């Protein structure tokens, strides 16, 4: 009954989260706007790819964030299973659609970028592309489980189990460029050793990434709040019905 215990006293969470939810969302929007502006108009064009490369300021951070979102859900699912903390279930559930949206954004921008760069929208033999697509399906399956179960308690656990099993995919995505057959760029930003990307690329990229992160946090909190309020409303309705009936 972990889901219940939080609602027994959700006041603190609700009181605190309100400010953070809007704060993060606003901060995220501002950072993204600023970063994208920097990326599109200020940063130098890529010496090989020209202006087409500017799409990376959207593509790369959204791919990072999709992986971060999934990792966040894995963590939350773990907490939910081990400590049965109700907030964790709500957090994982709330993060899923946002993670799925970022994954879709990354897939779409990647395809758009791939057309001029690799001469194809999509390449089935590419391990990274395919593993990202699997990630997208895992997000969908995760949301489908929440839909399909008849009680939130069961849904929470079943979804958490799926989330943990699907975590195998994360290292596959990240390391696919190193070990498997792929057209995709090797790690440039999170590679140790020599500097691969110049500061001119890096700064707007990190700005957008930070913006995405803040937006993710804000939207997830908003989603969580909506989730909790919905459950509360349902409870009130039930109580009203019970009182009216007897």
């Amino acid at each position: 009954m972990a889901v219940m215990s939080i609602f027994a006293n959700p006041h603190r969470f609700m009181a605190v989260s309100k400010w953070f939810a809007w704060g993060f969302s606003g901060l995220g929007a501002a950072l993204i706007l600023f970063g994208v502006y920097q990326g599109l108009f200020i940063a130098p064009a890529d010496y090989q790819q020209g202006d087409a490369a500017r799409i990376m300021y959207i593509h790369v951070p959204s791919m990072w964030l999709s992986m971060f979102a999934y990792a966040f859900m894995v963590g939350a699912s773990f907490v939910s299973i081990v400590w049965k903390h109700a907030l964790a279930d709500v957090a994982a559930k709330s993060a899923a659609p946002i993670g799925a949206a970022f994954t879709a954004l990354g897939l779409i921008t990647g395809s758009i970028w791939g057309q001029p760069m690799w001469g194809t929208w999509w390449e089935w033999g590419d391990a990274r592309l395919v593993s990202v697509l699997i990630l997208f399906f895992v997000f969908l399956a995760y949301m489908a489980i929440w839909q399909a179960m008849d009680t939130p308690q069961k849904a929470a656990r079943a979804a958490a189990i799926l989330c943990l099993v699907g975590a195998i995919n994360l290292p596959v995505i990240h390391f696919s460029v190193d070990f498997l057959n792929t057209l995709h760029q090797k790690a440039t930003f999170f590679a140790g050793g020599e500097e691969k990307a110049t500061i001119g690329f890096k700064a707007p990229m990190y700005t957008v990434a930070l913006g995405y992160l803040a937006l993710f946090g804000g939207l997830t909190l908003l989603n969580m709040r909506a989730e909790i309020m919905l459950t509360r409303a349902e409870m009130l309705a039930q109580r009203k019905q019970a009182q009216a009936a007897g």
Partner: protein
Amino acid sequence: MVVAPASSLVLEVENLAAVRGLRVLFEGLSLRVSGGEALELRGPNGSGKSTLLRILAGLTRQHAGTVTYSADEHDAPHHYLGHADAVKPTESAGEQARFWASYFGRPAITATDALARVGLSQRTEVPGRGLSAGQKRRLALSRLLIDPRPVWLLDEPTAALDIEGRKLVVDLVAEHRATGGMVIAAIHGDGFVNSNTLDLSKLKAPANLEGLA
């Protein structure tokens, strides 16, 4: 029968609360049952008898509170018989009894004897789907005999049974208690001799939906 001596067998329930859907079924329920005792759970339909039994059996998670059995030599000290009989439609009655005997691994009596005791010796070849409602119930009861366990959690054990079958249940319960066993049964109508009663409808009072909303 290998049953824990009466003195060592105790079930301790403390401050138990159950929630189904968004409804508090009961809360603050504490009780203590010892070996040799029987507790009848009573209350109108939907008052939470089945839910309580499933919590005691470890099948459903409680909302709050603790359940402790002090019969430590058993990893699972109880039998749970629910509303569903766990009867497979394609297996014959005899096959099913033999399966449970091998599943539990330390049958107290043979499957044949258990079936005879519950009145199914002439139906061993009938597949589960051919058994009548009462015969299915009897097949489920045979599990109690095949593996001796100190605690019996029975959900309306006499449902679907004929008069003679009801007497059988009363007898089995009495014998089990005589060897130090404990019985907790949800029941409507006639109960067991010399047993305690927990009326779940009387527990209802502090349904504190307040705290939830």
